[in-house]
């Protein structure tokens, strides 16, 4: 019998600790336990056999740390092959039937980007090597365990799916707060892992069975696949020089029995557990009545921290990351101004969007690169789940791959070609697909016609193994200015899809008012009608007061707002013009400074932006820059040098100046404001600190330099190539640690070779004038302002 079939009708017992037992058998500190597969096969076999006799159905091969980072390819092959062989031999020797061998895959010990240095695709490759060897050696199951990061987990699952057909069991290490170290809740992990089609999922290590039980309960509540739990034998402590764990085998079994009664189907142990623990668990739980695994039918997407479920409460999908009809946004895309996109993301997050739509498609840009970059970077500034919005299947796949969670996929439609492009991606990477009710014949003008397309889409999805819970139908809001019945058809179709198909729905609400004056009036009423007709999610503008009023009022009236807390918290915002300035208004006299200068000097972002939009109507932008902005920056710079003003004040005023420039840019998108020379800026390879670099960037941009920011941890080749490509006269490098200064020197050497005329500025906490000279820099900046002065003087 294969493992998938066996799991259907049985409670399955994995084994328990290996490392702790090997230590007791003489494994030395620092010695790699995987080598014992070759040097001590009899010890490994013996441990496996003891677990088999204790009741284990699955033997975990001794391959936890077997990866290419720790072993050469040849040794790795030898070790994994030996490990699987040892496990198989133990099964054969024991004489039992229906026992399985799991290839054990633990974390790589390196954090993935953006938190760490390891590239996602690199991680996939590393796991792929282990998986391929293990599958070839005859493993029955891929066990991915003890992962405390959702992205690394995803890389491992992807590698397993791409390199074998074996069942994949995933078990994460949750910490005391009930989330993974990098933030994911059990609900988020269920969404991610089920989306990717794992056979079972759960938790192991870090804590004892009691502490892990709340995590297990959450997993059981949400998961439609079997749940696995392999806790530690409690907390370890030293007793007379020996390590002991504080949960006994019988207490361990007692806790697992309680969970087995709630539906836990796979059990085992982690650190500190022994065959005695597995035996106790098997004895206590073997007669428990096995319940079939229930389908939960939860429509959910997730990010690296949390899941968003499509339940009663309407889900708000922010639509602002989209260039359609937005000149400033298009310009940002052409200039590859990621910061602008990120700011749109953060603002919508603050405006209470639940999910962010990401659409960066305009002609003449590399959409694949742009979308991947936007999705990657948005995940560094917001933990809202993303809706990836593109008609380019390659861009969609690339973005889905690196997305750290289960994304929304926008969109598929009833056309054969569309379904054949999108469904395989949804199946492989997971995702909730927005399905537009149109097909080769266009958009039906009746609700029934749209329902029929929805049925067709569902049937096709089923062929790909995609459940209807993972399809959200968009019944297409069309403008009422073209057809007076347009809204009614859309609303009727919503209702039919909810009632007849039991599916969730979504709408791009604002399309309904296209071509009309005062669109928000129509939009907001249509929104409330759609909600009443069962709309589950709206793609909308979260900055629109009218829409948000409907949202809060609807929740309040429909009993979705406990104690009306959300309504009360937000109602005051809508009474008067949005109160946005949280900083204290300054009543000081502004002396000889202009009003804008003074706002910048005082670091008042909103005020600087407001004044600029007022004066730009009657004043030339160049005059605003020369008479208001630059004098203010100079005044603050002067104060900073004289130590009457300090770094935070310098920064606040720089940000206020930037806000003023934003207004200028928005008013004249073709005038990019930067007329000065190009400065390439980066934090060197190996270094992950970028606050200092960003300060320099902000100041330089304010003084009109064209700043090309390559980010942090940037390899020297990339920096040198960019400098050459742009023929940049200046390069600014930052390093904070002594350990990364050599990488700065390496970059300088390379740039000198490739672009000898480029002047190189360096800065960072560990550098000194003398050191800068030694590594061959042209200039050492003790702070951001000195860099500006140097560049202005050149």
């Amino acid at each position, binding site marked *: 019998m294969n493992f998938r079939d066996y799991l259907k009708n049985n409670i399955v017992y994995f084994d328990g600790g290996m490392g702790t037992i090997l230590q007791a058998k003489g494994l030395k*500190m*620092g010695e790699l336990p995987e080598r014992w597969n070759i040097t001590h096969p009899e010890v490994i076999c013996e441990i496996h056999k003891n677990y088999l006799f204790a009741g284990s159905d699955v033997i975990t091969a001794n391959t936890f740390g077997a990866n290419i980072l720790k072993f050469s390819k040849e040794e790795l092959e030898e070790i994994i092959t030996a490990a699987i062989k040892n496990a198989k031999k133990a099964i054969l020797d024991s004489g039992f039937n229906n026992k399985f061998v799991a290839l054990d895959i633990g974390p790589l*010990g*390196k*954090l993935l980007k*953006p*938190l*760490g*240095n390891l590239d996602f695709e690199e991680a996939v490759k590393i796991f792929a090597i282990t998986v391929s060897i293990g599958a070839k050696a005859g493993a029955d199951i891929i066990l991915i365990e*003890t992962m*405390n990061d959702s992205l690394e987990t995803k890389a491992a699952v992807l590698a397993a799916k791409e390199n074998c057909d074996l069942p994949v069991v995933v078990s994460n290490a949750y*910490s*005391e707060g009930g989330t993974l*170290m*990098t*933030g994911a809740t059990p609900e988020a992990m269920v969404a991610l892992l089920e989306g990717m089609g794992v056979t079972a999922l759960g938790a192991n*290590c870090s804590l004892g069975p009691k502490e892990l039980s709340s995590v297990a309960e959450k997993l059981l509540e949400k998961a439609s696949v079997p749940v696995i739990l392999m806790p530690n034998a409690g*907390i*370890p*402590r*030293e007793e007379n020089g020996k390590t002991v764990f504080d949960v006994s085998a019988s207490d361990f079994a007692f806790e697992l029995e309680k969970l087995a009664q709630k539906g836990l189907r796979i059990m085992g142990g982690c650190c500190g557990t022994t065959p005695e623990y597995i035996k106790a668990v098997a004895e206590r739980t073997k007669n428990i009545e096995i319940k079939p695994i229930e389908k939960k039918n939860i429509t959910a997407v997730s990010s690296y921290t949390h899941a968003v479920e499509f339940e009663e409460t309407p889900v708000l999908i922010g639509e602002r990351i989209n260039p359609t009809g937005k000149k400033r946004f298009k310009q940002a895309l052409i200039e590859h101004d990621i*910061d602008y996109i*990120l*700011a749109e993301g*953060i603002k919508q997050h603050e405006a209470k969007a639940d999910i962010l739509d990401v659409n960066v498609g305009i002609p003449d840009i590399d959409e694949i690169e742009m979308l991947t970059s936007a999705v990657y970077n948005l995940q*560094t*500034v*917001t*933990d809202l789940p993303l809706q990836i919005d593109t008609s380019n299947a390659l861009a969609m796949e690339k973005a889905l791959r690196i997305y750290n969670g289960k994304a929304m996929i926008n969109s598929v439609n009833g056309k054969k070609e569309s379904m054949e492009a999108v469904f395989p991606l949804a199946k492989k990477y997971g995702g909730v697909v927005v399905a537009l009710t149109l097909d080769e014949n266009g958009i039906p003008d009746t609700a029934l016609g749209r329902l029929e397309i929805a049925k067709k889409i569902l049937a096709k999805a089923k062929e790909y193994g995609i459940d209807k819970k993972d399809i959200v139908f968009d019944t297409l809001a069309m403008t009422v200015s073209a057809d007076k019945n347009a809204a009614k058809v859309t609303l009727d179709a919503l209702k039919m899809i909810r009632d007849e198909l039991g599916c969730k729905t979504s709408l791009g609400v604002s399309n309904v008012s296209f071509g009309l004056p005062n669109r928000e009036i129509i939009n907001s009423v249509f929104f409330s009608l759609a909600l009443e007709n069962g709309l589950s999610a709206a793609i909308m503008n979260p900055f629109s007061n009218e829409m948000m009023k409907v949202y809060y009022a609807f929740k309040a009236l429909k009993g979705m707002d406990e104690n009306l807390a959300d309504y009360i918290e937000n109602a005051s915002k809508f009474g008067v013009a949005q109160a946005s300035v949280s*900083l*204290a208004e*300054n009543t000081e006299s502004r002396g000889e400074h202009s009003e804008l200068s003074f706002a910048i000097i005082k*670091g*008042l972002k909103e005020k600087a932006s407001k004044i600029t939009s007022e004066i730009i109507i009657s004043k030339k932008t160049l005059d605003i820059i020369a008479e208001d902005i630059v004098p203010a920056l100079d005044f603050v710079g002067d104060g900073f040098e004289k*130590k*009457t003003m*300090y*770094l*935070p*004040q310098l*920064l*606040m005023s*720089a*940000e206020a100046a930037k806000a003023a420039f934003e207004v200028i840019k928005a008013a004249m998108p073709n005038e990019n404001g930067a007329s000065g020379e190009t400065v390439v800026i980066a934090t060197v390879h*190996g*270094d*992950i*600190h*970028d*606050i200092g670099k*960003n*300060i320099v*960037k*902000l100041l330089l941009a304010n003084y009109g330099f064209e700043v090309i*920011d390559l980010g942090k941890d940037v390899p020297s080749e990339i920096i040198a190539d960019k400098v050459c490509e742009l023929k940049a006269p200046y390069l600014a490098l930052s390093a904070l*640690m*002594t*350990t*990364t200064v050599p*990488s700065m020197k390496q970059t300088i050497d390379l740039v000198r070779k490739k672009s000898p005329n480029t002047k190189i500025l360096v800065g960072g906490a560990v550098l000194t004038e003398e050191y800068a000279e030694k590594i061959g820099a042209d200039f050492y900046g003790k702070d951001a302002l000195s860099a500006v002065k140097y560049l202005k003087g050149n």
Partner: protein
Amino acid sequence: MISEIKIYEKTDISINSKEILRYCGMKTDDENFKCLLNECLEECENAFDFKVCFIKTPLEINGDICDFSEFKLQSQNLSFNLKDCDSAIIFGATIGIKIDRLIARYSSLSPTKAVIFGAIGAMMIEALCDRFCSDIGNGRKTAPRFSAGYGDLALEAQKDIFKALDLQKKSGIYLNDSLLMVPTKSVTAIMGIKREGI
């Protein structure tokens, strides 16, 4: 030797605004800045997961070699720091990853806030270490805590400390190839416990 874990709650660690201002490099009164600081404090109110992973080790000092039985470190400064001690606490402490995410969120959009969150994080991790060291000292006199990279103790010592504590697995603190820690607001250190009677 197996390391132990100690978890602290939000209420255990108090906020020291003066220290935050010092880390920001702010030496003057500024109403606007204070408002922003308060806004940041509110925003990161629940952004901390205080965790310390530690071992108690015997200690022998021979010249500039400090012998913690499981591993040795060579450093004159550390030997001097530990000279009256007969045992040591080796620990790794972190306030978690959330503050790093806040710093990243604002690092290019509002460097001011990034600097403030950096300063709050620095104050918090130091306060956590202070609290832990005072708890674990248990009334015994202790030497000031000493970290890799101080004086002549090479940053490479981080590797030994990580191994001895099994720090990555136990606490989720990672050490990258440049010997930087993630979460960045993490500290590893050695604190000597002085011999009775000193």
